[in-house]
């Protein structure tokens, strides 16, 4: 059972995070060397001034993770060491399990975590980690899956879009525009729904027994005016799905700026990009500084200006339970030209599913900026009945105006466009 040849092999040949602590690096060869450096915030209890040398690799591993932007608290390091000693450790696997249970929190970074673990404890080559941010996994395997499903069909309609993946990255130059106002107005402009959480109110509510009774007690048994509570109104979620395929090239930079303003302004907004893959960029856009946020988001997305697989990627979005939960009761705005390569059956299914989940489903297409635009392509005609809005997405002004008007009722897209054409 006891795998004794193993536990201390990690001490050799591992990568030292800072490279400064020579004592730590050679802890394997020289076990007598006391460990003197603790993280500054670590609690220094009596007897902890010099930790047993065997703990050095664990401390070192936690530090390595910290260096790679894993949030690890001092108490987690202590728990990690306790966990390792509770488990034996009988084998390297015990150490790994302890590390996973105590230190690794987000499943999205599991792959990265494992790579660091192997590199550190087994002395593997430096881990090659792509896309350190959220959702790498989903982004990758969804893309791979879509590739498998790729049919060798004739390309009809949408000459601009192609299924070929062209992976490239892009920089966004920053400039000033009227998005500040949009950001400030957004939270109050989104449609509201009644929350189950209640708030105090002076009129029109139900009796708040708790406060009323304490009022009665403090008034010595007199019954003053009753205290009331009422369900609060909270803004709905906003879900932006941005098409980053080649045919949308001219607009994606503007759309990302809009998305940044939306994430900053709304209480709960989620932003995804889709082309040949699906990428969640919400967490990148939470950075306040726009240039930084956009640069981060740009680095996350692999499929800039590539082909379009609109239907399959949107279906992939809906088949991840936690993503489709974002769409539930939300205002879903798809920013795309709706040019789907080949068959649009999947796009239609995806849009119908969105319709069933969302509070309001809108498609903003830059093509509608042209006064002669009519929803004439077969894909657009097929999804028109399920759309609440089909609007002009060619300029930031028209888009911000539209999003700020989401709370106001409007006739369904089908009705409007039938009247026009």
């Amino acid at each position, binding site marked *: 059972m006891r795998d004794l040849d193993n536990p201390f092999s990690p001490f050799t040949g591992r990568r030292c995070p800072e490279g400064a602590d020579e004592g730590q690096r050679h802890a394997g060869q020289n076990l007598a060397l006391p460990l003197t450096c603790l993280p500054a915030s670590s609690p220094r209890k009596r007897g902890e001034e010099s930790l047993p040398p065997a703990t050095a690799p664990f401390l070192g591993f936690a530090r390595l993770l910290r260096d790679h932007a894993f*949030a690890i*608290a001092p*108490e*987690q390091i202590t*728990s990690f060491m*306790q*966990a390792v000693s*509770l*488990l034996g450790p009988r084998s390297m*696997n*015990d150490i790994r*399990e*302890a590390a*996973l*249970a*105590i230190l*690794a*929190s*987000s*499943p999205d970074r*599991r792959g990265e975590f494992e790579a660091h673990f192997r590199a550190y404890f087994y002395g593997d080559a430096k881990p090659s980690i792509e896309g350190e941010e959220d959702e790498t996994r989903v982004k990758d395997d969804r893309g791979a*899956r879509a590739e498998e499903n790729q049919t060798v069909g004739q390309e009809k309609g949408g000459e601009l879009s192609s299924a070929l993946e062209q992976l490239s990255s892009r920089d966004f130059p920053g400039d000033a525009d009227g998005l500040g106002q949009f950001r400030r107005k957004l939270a109050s402009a989104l449609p509201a729904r009644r*929350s*189950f*959480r*209640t708030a105090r109110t002076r009129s029109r509510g139900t009796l708040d*027994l*708790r406060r*009323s*009774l304490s009022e*009665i*007690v403090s008034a010595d*048994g007199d019954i003053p005016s009753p205290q009331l509570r009422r369900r609060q109104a909270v803004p709905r979620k906003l879900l932006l799905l941005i098409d980053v395929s080649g045919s949308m090239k001219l607009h994606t930079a503007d759309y990302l700026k809009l998305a940044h303003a939306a994430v900053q302004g709304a209480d709960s907004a989620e932003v995804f990009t889709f082309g040949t893959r699906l990428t969640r960029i919400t967490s990148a856009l939470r950075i306040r500084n726009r240039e930084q946020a956009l640069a981060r988001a740009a680095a996350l997305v692999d499929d800039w200006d590539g082909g379009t697989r609109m239907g*399959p990627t949107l*279906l*992939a979005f*809906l*088949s991840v*339970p*936690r993503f*489709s*939960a*974002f769409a539930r009761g939300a205002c879903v705005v798809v920013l795309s030209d709706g040019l789907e390569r080949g068959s649009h059956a999947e796009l239609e*299914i995806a849009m*119908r*599913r969105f319709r069933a989940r969302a509070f309001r489903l809108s498609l903003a297409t830059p093509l509608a900026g042209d006064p002669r635009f009519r929803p004439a392509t077969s894909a657009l005609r097929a999804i028109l009945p399920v759309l609440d809005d089909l609007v002009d997405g060619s300029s930031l002004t028209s888009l911000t105006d539209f999003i700020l008007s989401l709370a106001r009722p409007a006739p369904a897209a089908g009705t409007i466009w039938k009247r026009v054409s």
Partner: protein
Amino acid sequence: MANADAVAVAASPEAIAARLVASRYLADDSLATAIFLAIRLGKPLLLEGAPGVGKTEAAKAVAELLGRELVRLQCYEGIDAGHALYEWNYQRQLLAIRHAGEHEIDIYDDRFLIARPLLQVLRAPERRVLLVDEIDRSDHEFEALLLEFLSDFQISIPERGTIRAATQPIVILTSNRTRELAEALRRRCVYHWIGYPDARREAEIIMLRSGDVAEATARAVANAVQEIRARPLAKPPGIAEAVEWANAATILEKGGSPWPEAFRRAIGVLIKDEEDLSAIAPELGRIVDEALG
């Protein structure tokens, strides 16, 4: 740290795994280790995973292996202290005040206190296990409240003072990850991500959880479900659905349907979405045949 009987039960991850099997729950090594660590370190256990992978079942199994009662707090949007901690029975208080007349009465007596799940567990931590189910459904305010509870295991009632747990309660939290939980909450917990099991383990689970399903059926169901999960469905089938499917197909087969037909007719318990059904229908025959063969 944790109390003595729990420590005695949790001698090693293997002991936990064996006891979980006795409670009809098949845990992989990683989950058994996480449960072991949570009990021994006295930390809450945070289980995350897609819907239907058996998070709540795991909590039930842990309560059973410790021989304790499971107190479940189902979270929902808008849940607040009154639903989670305690509430005063205002009607009874008012009646008592009127009844007492001129006598003095303590309206903050125990009999007016309604203990909600967190307080119930705090009062008898050695007899109860707390399950905070689907915490991602609650809002941020509630998460903060829970954080306070989980770090000190105490509740302050202004009228009564602070109630502290005699020993550290065992707490299990589950989440479907529809929302990111606060870093502070994750940090305090032992974490485990439950994924879908591989076909072999899933077959074992089906055998364990279902009534009388033949081994070949269980294996065929497990294979077919793996295949179906690989497709972009609106609702990928969970383990519970797979178990039901195996049960339903067995019943149909006993009623006289031949094998592949029984699977096809019982598909309604596996896939509960009309569009998913129509998407999978043309391929179902092939999937089932392959799984059987």
